């Protein structure tokens, strides 16, 4: 079995996790910029983080033969401070030409505030102006439904948005149809307690189809499982799905979306 992990916060993981992922069949890992678990106090902190995502972490992954790609942004949890957001947004363009950068992400909303929405719109504008892919984080738990609707509106309000170049992540049963109906890609995050379990993920694939959906583990510094994606393949097989279906969802789908970035090239294709 082969798979792509399209959303993993590897700076928070151990080398044992890299080894386990490669052993399970992982062919590439993609790392969106994320909240550190605490608020960074200056734009310089973000500069260092962007260097980590584009310089250091690819080298760490390479020791396990795993291609590493990244997405850059200010996380919505840190978007309340508009002055800091402006300083961080000004840093991003200089990183976009780095060879492992796929686009702008994971942008979005957290508590659905007016300031978060302003910063989201600025990120969308930056992505469109630089012809970058967009990876969107949708809010947690009770905030997800409202936030997903606000995010879709913000994306569609920008005349340059191309839905086929945007993936809206962390969808669940109440938000996935909203995302797919507007032509966006949808990401299902396999995350204990707060997002989706493997059985529910396969339910959504069975009811919504697998055309524009990818699975990811979003493993980070919290309780999370870097092998959640291959474990979901087991759930698919237990239900009688074919190996080709598993390959479509776990490898070909993320490959198809990510290949819209010229930087996403895997070794066997070059």
């Amino acid at each position, binding site marked *: 079995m082969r798979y792509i992990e399209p959303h993993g916060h590897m700076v928070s993981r151990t080398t044992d996790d890299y080894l386990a992922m490669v052993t399970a069949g992982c062919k590439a890992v993609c790392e969106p910029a994320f909240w550190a678990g605490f608020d960074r106090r200056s734009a310089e902190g973000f500069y260092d983080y962007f260097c980590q995502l584009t310089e250091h972490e690819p080298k760490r992954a390479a020791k396990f033969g795993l291609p590493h790609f990244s997405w850059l942004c200010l996380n919505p949890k840190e978007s309340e401070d508009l002055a800091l957001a402006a300083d961080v947004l000004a840093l991003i363009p200089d990183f976009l030409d780095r060879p492992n950068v796929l686009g702008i992400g994971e942008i979005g909303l957290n508590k659905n505030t*007016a*300031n978060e929405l302003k910063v989201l719109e600025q990120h969308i504008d930056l992505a469109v102006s630089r012809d970058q892919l967009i990876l969107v984080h949708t809010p947690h*738990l*009770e905030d997800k439904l409202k936030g997903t609707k606000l995010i879709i509106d913000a994306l569609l309000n920008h005349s340059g948005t191309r839905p086929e170049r945007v993936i809206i992540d962390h969808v669940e*049963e109440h938000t996935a149809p909203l995302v797919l109906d507007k032509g966006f890609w949808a990401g299902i995050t396999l995350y204990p307690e707060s997002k989706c379990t493997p*059985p529910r993920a396969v339910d959504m694939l069975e009811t919504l189809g697998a055309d524009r959906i990818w699975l990811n583990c979003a493993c980070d510094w919290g309780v999370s499982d870097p092998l959640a994606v291959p474990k979901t393949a087991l759930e698919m097989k*237990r239900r009688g799905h074919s190996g080709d279906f598993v390959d479509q969802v776990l490898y070909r789908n993320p490959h198809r979306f990510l290949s819209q970035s010229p930087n996403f090239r895997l070794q066997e294709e070059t």
Partner: protein
Amino acid sequence: MTASQSPRQRVVDLAFLDARSKLIDLAAFLDRVDRHPGSEDYRVAALKSALVELSGNEPDRARRVLEALSDPTEEPAPRAETQGATGAWRPPETCSPS
């Protein structure tokens, strides 16, 4: 699992014990809360309200449970009071003054 099983039977065979276990966990959680005095927490109240979605035969129960636990408002919030989420929407009239 055998080739003669219907798909419906296969689904039940695969997941019944897991679903049973989660249902009993939920019942035990409500018992645990009730063993202690105090007023009803808004999250527990929301959980109990969402439970009615399980008792009928209409489809999309997961979607309806998620919607029952969601913030139903539409306008952006003026500011973030916290960075986290609790799992159930707290109606403004039940918020304690800050």
